[in-house]
């Protein structure tokens, strides 16, 4: 059976509720790192962590540069920085141009995560009102990773999942709750 090393997820408009719902499905037995890019205003940051922490027992934190990525942790990209992953499984940050009018951009995270984790990566695209994440999800698929997309009719803002589906033949198209339960069934690599 296929084994996994990380999950990356992206969302935009409607993302707060979506992520909280997703986290609520993940029990403490979830043994993968979950790395999230969410388009936010600078000010939303601090409130967000309190809100998310109230929906899960997993540790939710802002991803910081050079930090080692650990299983069972939930990381959220800091506002106004792109989040990338290095081969030694640490984070790096960049202030380069916005991508799809966004910084952080979901595509940037997904592409660098696909380079590092290859087939051991699962990518998730949730609600949003733009098309960030579509190309990144395609890269995950091309590298042999697993692709999950929220069923557009069930998303608060369907455009982002819809764009992803136009770009990628996703492995699973599910509601958020189902995505959460599905992630719980992924087998972590033995090293975790």
């Amino acid at each position: 059976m296929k084994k996994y090393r990380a999950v990356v997820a992206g969302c935009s408009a409607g993302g707060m509720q979506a992520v909280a719902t997703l986290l609520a499905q993940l029990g403490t037995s979830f043994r993968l790192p979950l790395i999230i890019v969410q388009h936010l205003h600078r000010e939303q940051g601090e409130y967000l962590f309190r809100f998310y922490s109230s929906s899960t027992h997993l540790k939710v934190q802002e991803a910081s540069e050079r930090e080692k990525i650990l299983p069972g942790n939930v990381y959220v990209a800091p506002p106004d920085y792109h989040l990338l992953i290095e081969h030694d499984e640490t984070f790096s940050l960049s202030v380069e141009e916005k991508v799809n009018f966004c910084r952080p951009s979901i595509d940037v995270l997904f592409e660098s995560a696909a380079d590092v984790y290859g087939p051991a990566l699962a990518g998730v695209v949730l609600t949003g009102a733009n098309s960030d994440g579509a190309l990144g999800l395609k890269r995950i698929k091309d590298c042999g990773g697993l692709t999950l997309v929220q069923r557009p009719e069930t998303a608060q803002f369907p455009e982002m999942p819809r764009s992803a589906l136009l770009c990628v033949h996703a492995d699973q198209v599910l509601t958020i709750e189902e995505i959460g339960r599905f992630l719980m069934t992924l087998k972590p690599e033995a090293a975790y």
Partner: protein
Amino acid sequence: MTSGELEAIEIDLLLEAVFRRYGYDFRSYARASVVRRLRLLLEQSGIASVGELIPKLLHEPAFFQELLFAFSITVSGMFRDPEFFRSLRENVVPLLKTYPFIRVWVAGCACGEEAYSLAILLKEEGLAAHSTIYATDINDQALAVAKEGIYPLRQVREYTENYQKSGPHDSFSRYYHASHDHIVMNRELKKSITFANHNLVSDHVFAEMHLILCRNVMIYFDRELKDRVLRLLDSSLIRGGFLCLGTKESLRFSCGDGRHDEIDSKNRIYRKRVLEAGEGRTR
């Protein structure tokens, strides 16, 4: 071998070629970002693989300039992170005022936005006549823009908003004049800054600085290079001098090393100790 592994070899060779041919050392830059920049460059230039870039780079210095531009990410802004500038005013300026003259270094100044912000701040705090600002970067194109002090008009709203949040004493519009689609910074401000090419990886220390800003530059360096550059910055500071990093940068060389005090941890402002730990006793 996967295509990713192949690409990794090609990138190693390319960075080696660039270093030996042009003396610019990007081998210790954070890889994920280098990979991204190279792929963008490939896309723009219609070249199929990183390997194919190598002969072109070796034989066409003009193409190397493009690579240099692609590698140095010059995104910046005036009074970016206004809270940081506010903290400078509140926590650092009062101490700077105790010196008859201060020297300031903006390392990795991109197109000069941060240096002008600082020049404005020092002027408003009455320090302009007693200070020199050096602003350096490896990117000559960016330095040329910085010297001109010309920025797109469409940025002004954001700059003004940032400025207003930085605890100002005046109005931002006093510092530039607008024409057509751009703004030009006042001549007086321009005169207060010396822009120059300086490479943090390979060039020497700057002596006797009272304040150094090196923000969002070392995030592109690997650990070892970052530590090396931190040592360089540190030896460029006077004792009691201030070092400021980007708001999401971790200071690994540490404040617990007895050499630095944290002035504002959120805004990443540090002060080099006047006396090192234990030193007082031996004298």
